[in-house]
């Protein structure tokens, strides 16, 4: 049941016959550099055209499908399964890479589920096999009885590990977050596909770091800062983290962040931006190394960046993670206030 992918850089065949995986995941796990961004149906990056054969799109109403020419057979690879032999066109440069290092399916057990705030939980997944990932990458997570996958960034970092940590914010009507909050998830078997994503701090990479994030977007940034700290990054570079939450009580990972500030010897600054209440003091009552400011995180960052943009080194990297309006606002700050070229900005947008 061969699947043929015609791309700008030649033709590839997928020989695995695991029809339960999406075409995107089948291609990626075969080592192909297929185009994708969110891998969960919202961005529309992984569009392809079915030239022949039977391909079924699981979620035709996916936000990322709104611009597809369905009458011409266009689909999203991340939402589609092949029902037999088929030929597809992917309008991009695609290359074949090392299959052993490709993203793949990994099973694990959910452990250590704990509530961090009224609407945020974190948990670990004990993996059946260790996985290697880059700081800032994510996995697409599926849980028993829930349809569709959710993308979550790893919070921790280790070159290779069999324990990874995720953080999830409860969303109204969010199937996965409601399942986590219903207290039946501890010990459950869950399935992951990854690692995915390119908003990463690459090993050995140098440069000041300006990170802007809100809510659970902190996940991948925690991994990046953890990696940077372990690699001695802040002995020769500076860092700023702007972390947006609604109120002081909504802050989390503050103890860990205060620890990173301390280890950096002051080269890393952490600023908690409170959008829905005034900052009670200039620094956090329990973690004095964390600064407090009032306002939306990109506005707080815009004011802060003005003061230090002249001190940024040439290799500065901007990291942004969060919901689309926050990401767009933060990218604006990095371009116009921090004067970073677009090639030095890496973002992770989720909705």
């Amino acid at each position, binding site marked *: 049941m061969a699947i043929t992918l015609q791309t*700008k850089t030649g033709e590839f065949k997928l020989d695995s016959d695991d029809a339960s995986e999406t075409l995107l995941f089948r291609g990626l796990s075969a080592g192909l550099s297929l185009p994708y961004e969110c891998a969960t149906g919202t961005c529309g990056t992984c569009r392809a055209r079915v030239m022949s054969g039977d391909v079924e799109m699981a979620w035709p109403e996916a936000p990322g499908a709104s611009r597809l020419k369905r009458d011409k057979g266009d689909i999203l690879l991340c939402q589609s399964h092949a029902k037999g032999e088929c030929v597809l066109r992917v*309008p991009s440069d695609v290359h074949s890479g090392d299959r052993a290092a490709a993203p793949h399916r990994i099973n694990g057990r959910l452990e250590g589920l704990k509530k961090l705030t009224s609407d945020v939980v974190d948990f670990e997944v004990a993996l059946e096999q260790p996985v290697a990932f880059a700081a800032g990458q994510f996995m697409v997570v599926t849980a028993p009885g829930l349809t569709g996958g959710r993308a979550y960034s790893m919070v921790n970092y280790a070159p290779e590990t069999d324990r990874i940590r995720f953080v999830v914010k409860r969303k109204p009507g969010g199937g996965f977050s409601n399942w986590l909050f219903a207290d039946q998830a501890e010990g459950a078997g869950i399935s992951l596909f990854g690692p995915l994503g390119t908003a990463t701090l690459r090993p050995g990479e140098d440069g000041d770091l300006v990170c802007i994030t809100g809510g659970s977007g902190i996940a991948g940034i925690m991994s990046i800062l953890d990696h940077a700290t372990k690699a001695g990054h802040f002995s020769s570079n500076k860092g700023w983290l702007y972390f947006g939450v609604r109120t002081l009580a909504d802050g989390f990972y503050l103890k860990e962040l205060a620890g990173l500030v301390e280890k950096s010897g002051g080269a890393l600054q952490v600023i908690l931006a409170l959008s829905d209440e005034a900052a009670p003091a200039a620094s956090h009552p329990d973690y004095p190394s964390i600064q407090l400011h009032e306002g939306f995180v990109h506005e707080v960052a815009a004011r802060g960046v003005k003061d230090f943009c002249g001190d940024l080194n040439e290799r500065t990297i901007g990291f942004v993670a969060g919901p689309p309006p926050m990401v767009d606002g933060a*990218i604006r700050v990095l*371009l*116009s206030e921090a004067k970073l*070229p677009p090639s030095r*900005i890496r973002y992770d947008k989720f909705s």
Partner: protein
Amino acid sequence: MSWIKLCKTTEVPENSLKKIWAAGGIPILVAHYKGGFRALPPVCPHMEEPLDESGIIAGCVMTCTKHLWAWDLATLELQGETEKPLKTYETKVEDGELMAFVEKELLYDFEDEDDMDDDAFFNS
């Protein structure tokens, strides 16, 4: 058509973008970068984002904040991962008025020029 007035140059400060409805109901984006003006179709050639909202100019570079496609407005060179060039109207300034030479509305071919229909594209 021919040379048409877009706006006074003072109406669009440096490092900003403004969408103008020009004569004939043609939407034109005026971009004031360091050293000059450009007149462009008002959408990003990537995914049709409205550049008057999603675009930002710093120095000579205009970036669409949605997916970080970017162009040098002085040379029109594509920056970084950007895959498509900008289309531009010729411009000139007369008596403080920015003018554009508009023969017909410039459009990106999101519908017609579909590279997936182009067999040569996949057999190269």
